[in-house]
């Protein structure tokens, strides 16, 4: 049976550019670069996050080269930074190294939760916007903070569904849909996705894209999970656009009452 792709013209717009894929992959947690590459290909991603770390002279291959040969755009992050100062320096190094203004801004409050520190995050966002960075702001799921970040000029709001690597999915769907409803920039669900249905839910809530790493890289079969995430993000996007049925407290028959045999309606 031939199928039309009803999402063929649905593009993800960010920073004046268009992407077919609404799945942004992270590369952390994978057992090898080969595993990353298989997952990237199965995911269909066009944007992928990388960390900025010391160059190892005898490195076993380059993540940067891997992204370039797969035509995937790098989104460097500031993972591991606890202060605005460190995040800004990391962003500056990332821009210099990867020749991109894009930065996924992470400023972490503590190593236990890896939740963003709202004050340092906001300060770093202000500085980086002033330095002409295109800031993807990793934030908690607070609609008020999201609004402040948007007002300061970030390009995308990236609320956490749950703590990084926890696999707990979206713990507060209401907050995510509130952020989406109030935002004039793309909202990208970041962190906490554990499995495909979590990614689909994020898109159903109106997110423009989903960023995930551990759910794929640490799955038993990363490439297969990557394919699942690709289809889940598309599925959730389709469902969001298609307009779901309302939730009802009582059942509603899908088979008609008309045309029943008399016997079967108890008359006779």
């Amino acid at each position, binding site marked *: 049976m031939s199928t039309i792709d009803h999402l063929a013209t649905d593009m993800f717009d960010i920073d004046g550019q268009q992407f077919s894929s609404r799945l942004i992959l992270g590369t*952390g947690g994978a057992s090898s670069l080969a595993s990353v590459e298989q997952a990237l290909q199965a995911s269909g991603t066009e944007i992928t996050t990388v960390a900025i770390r*010391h*160059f190892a002279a005898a490195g076993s291959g380059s*993540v940067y080269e891997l992204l370039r040969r797969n035509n995937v755009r790098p989104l460097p992050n500031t993972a591991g930074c606890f202060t605005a100062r460190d995040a800004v320096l990391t962003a500056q190094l990332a821009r*210099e190294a990867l020749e991109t203004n894009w930065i996924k801004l992470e400023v972490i409050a503590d190593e236990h939760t890896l939740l963003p520190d709202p004050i340092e995050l906001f300060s770093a966002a202000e500085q980086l916007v002033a330095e002409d960075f295109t800031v993807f702001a990793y934030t908690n799921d607070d609609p008020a903070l999201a609004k402040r970040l948007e007002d300061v000029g970030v390009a995308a709001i990236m609320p956490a569904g749950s703590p990084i690597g926890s696999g707990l999915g979206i713990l507060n769907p209401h907050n995510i849909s509130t952020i989406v409803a109030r935002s004039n920039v793309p909202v990208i669900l970041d962190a906490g996705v554990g499995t495909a249905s979590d990614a689909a839910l994020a898109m159903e809530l109106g997110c423009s894209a989903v960023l995930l790493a551990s759910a794929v890289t640490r799955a038993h079969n990363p490439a297969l999970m990557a394919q699942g995430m690709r289809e889940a993000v598309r599925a959730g996007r389709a469902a969001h656009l298609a307009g779901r049925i309302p939730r009802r407290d009582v059942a509603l028959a899908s088979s008609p009452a008309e045309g029943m045999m008399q016997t079967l309606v108890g008359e006779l």
Partner: protein
Amino acid sequence: MHSIDIQLNNQAHSVPAGSTARDLIATHTSRALGEDGRAVDGSRLGVALAVNGAVLPRGKWASYALCAGDRLDIVTAAQGG
């Protein structure tokens, strides 16, 4: 010919006196670099340099002479995020 002691990526390191940042990065990455700090083969280098905690743009690598005690960080993209 004497050498000077610096710190490279959190480790003690010696370079010949008179070395520039460009020399250090060329050696460390095994790539030939032009005056503009770009690889002479035209491909992207994918690294950045911080000197004493501040970015030194690639355009200034060739003119920056390393000083004893300088703390250098050569960074690149790594799996993450």
